[in-house]
C-alpha cells in the first residue's frame, strides 16, 4: 500500500472508531445517569422514611414520658391527698355521734375510696411500665375494665392462640394505639360497646377493635388532607407502620368502626 492510502485507511479507522466511541459514550452516559438518579431517588425516599420514623419514634417517646409523668403525679400527689382525706374522714366518722352526719361521712368516704381506685386505675393506664411488667393483654384488659367500671360502656376482650411477647417497644406502641382507638370510639363515635379481639398466630399478630358507634366516612376523611380526624387516623397508621404493622380501618355511618392492626411475627430462632 502507498503511504497515502495507509494514512487514509488509518485516518478513516480512527474516525470510525472515534465516532463509535462517542456514540457509545453518550448512550452509556444516559443509561448510567438514569440509573444513578433512580438509585438516588430510592436513597432519598429511604432517608425520608427513616427520618419520619425517627420523628414518630421521638413523638411516641415524648408521649410515653408525659403520660408516665402524669400518672406518677396522679399517684404521688392526688392519690396521697385522697388517702389523707380518707383517713380524716375515717377519724371524723368515728368522732361524730350524730347518725345522719355519720352516714353522710361514710358516703363521702366511699366516694373518696372509689376516686382513689379510679386514680390508681388511671395511673396504671398512663404508666408505660405497666405494659412492661404485666404484658400487653393484661394491660389492655385492665384498660377495658377501667372503662367498664364507669357502667356507661360494655367492653369485651377475647384472645386466640398462645400469647407471646412482641417486645416492649412494639407492645407499648400497640397499647397506645389501642388506647387512642378506644378513646376515639368513646369520645367521638359515642360508642357504648367495645369488642377487642387479639389473635396470636405463629407468624402473625393481630388486634381488632370494634365499636358500635356512629361511624364515619373513612374514604372522605382520608381524602381531605387537612381534616383533623384524617390526621389522627394517619398518625395511627404511621405508628402501626413504625412497628412494621399494617392498620386497616373500616367504617360506615351508623354502622360502627372496626380498626384492625396486623404485624408479622418472627418467632425467636427463625
Amino acid at each position: 500500500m502507498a503511504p497515502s492510502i495507509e494514512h487514509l485507511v488509518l485516518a478513516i479507522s480512527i474516525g470510525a472508531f472515534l465516532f463509535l466511541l462517542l456514540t457509545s459514550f453518550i448512550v452509556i452516559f444516559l443509561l448510567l445517569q438514569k440509573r444513578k438518579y433512580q438509585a438516588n431517588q430510592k436513597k432519598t425516599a429511604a432517608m425520608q422514611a427513616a427520618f419520619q420514623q425517627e420523628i414518630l419514634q421521638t413523638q411516641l417517646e415524648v408521649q410515653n414520658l408525659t403520660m408516665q409523668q402524669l400518672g406518677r403525679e396522679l399517684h404521688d400527689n392526688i392519690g396521697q391527698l385522697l388517702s389523707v382525706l380518707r383517713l380524716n374522714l375515717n377519724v371524723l366518722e368515728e368522732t361524730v355521734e350524730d347518725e345522719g352526719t355519720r352516714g353522710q361521712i361514710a358516703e363521702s368516704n366511699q366516694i373518696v375510696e372509689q376516686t382513689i381506685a379510679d386514680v390508681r386505675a388511671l395511673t396504671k393506664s398512663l404508666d408505660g411500665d405497666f405494659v412492661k411488667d404485666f404484658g400487653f393483654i393484661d394491660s389492655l384488659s385492665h384498660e377495658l375494665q377501667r372503662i367498664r367500671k364507669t357502667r356507661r360502656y360494655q367492653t369485651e376482650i377475647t384472645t386466640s392462640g398462645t400469647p407471646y411477647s412482641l417486645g416492649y417497644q412494639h407492645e407499648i406502641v400497640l397499647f397506645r394505639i389501642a388506647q387512642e382507638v378506644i378513646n376515639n370510639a368513646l369520645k367521638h363515635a359515642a360508642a357504648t360497646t367495645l369488642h377487642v379481639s387479639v389473635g396470636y398466630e405463629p407468624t402473625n399478630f393481630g388486634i381488632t377493635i370494634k365499636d358500635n358507634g356512629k361511624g364515619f366516612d373513612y374514604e372522605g376523611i382520608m381524602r381531605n388532607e387537612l381534616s383533623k380526624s384524617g390526621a389522627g387516623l394517619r398518625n395511627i397508621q404511621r405508628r402501626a407502620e413504625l412497628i412494621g404493622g399494617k392498620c386497616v380501618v373500616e367504617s360506615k355511618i351508623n354502622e360502627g368502626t372496626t380498626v384492625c392492626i396486623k404485624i408479622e411475627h418472627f418467632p425467636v430462632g427463625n
Partner: protein
Amino acid sequence: MAFSQYIYLSLLILCFFISLSQYVKYGQAYTYKVLFFLLGFGVFTEVIQFYMQETSNKNVGFIYHFYNPIEYILYAFLYLDFYISTKAKKTLLWSIPIYLIFAILGSLFVYGILDGKKDAHNHIIGDPLKVILPLYYLYELYNDDSQESVIILPMFWISVGTMFFFSLVAVFMSIRVELSSLDKELERTLHFWLNTVPNYVMYIMYSIGMLWHRQ
C-alpha cells in the same frame, strides 16, 4: 456555492434565530446571550467567507485565524456559567489567555495569517479544548444527583453536538488532506460527508437543545 453549503448556512442562520428567540423568551438568559453571540458570530464569519470565496475566488483561510480564538472564548464563557467546581471555573478562565497566546503566536509566526493557510493550531489545541469543555460539563452533570433527566437540558444537547463535531472534525480534516493528495475528485465527493455533515449534526443538536428547553 454548493447546495450543501446553502443548507449549512441556512441551518446556521436558523440556529442563530432560535437562540435569539430563546434569548427573548427566557428573559435574556445568560446561556442564550452567549449562544446568540456565538452563532451570530458564526453566521457573520461564514457569510463573509462564502462571499469572498464567490467574488474573489481566493483562499480565505485567514478568516479562521480570527474566528477560532473568538469562538473558543465564547465557548469558554458559555461553560463558565454551568461549571459547578470553582477550580474548574478558574482553569477555564486561565485557558482563555493561554489559548489566545498560542493562537496569536501560531498565526503570526507559524502558519502565516496572510498566506491564506488555515490555522492548524486550531485543530491541535482548540479542538481538544472544545471537546474537554463539554466533557467536563457532562462529568459534573453525571455527579449532580438532583438531575432527573439530562435530555431536557439545552446544554446537554449543545455539549453532545459540540463534542461530536470537534472530536470528529480533526480526524475528518486529516482524511481530507490525505484524500486530496490521493484523489482530488474523491476528496470533493467526500467533502460533504467529512465536513458538512458534522456541521449539520452540530447545529441540529443545538436547535434541538434550545427548542427542547423545559423550565
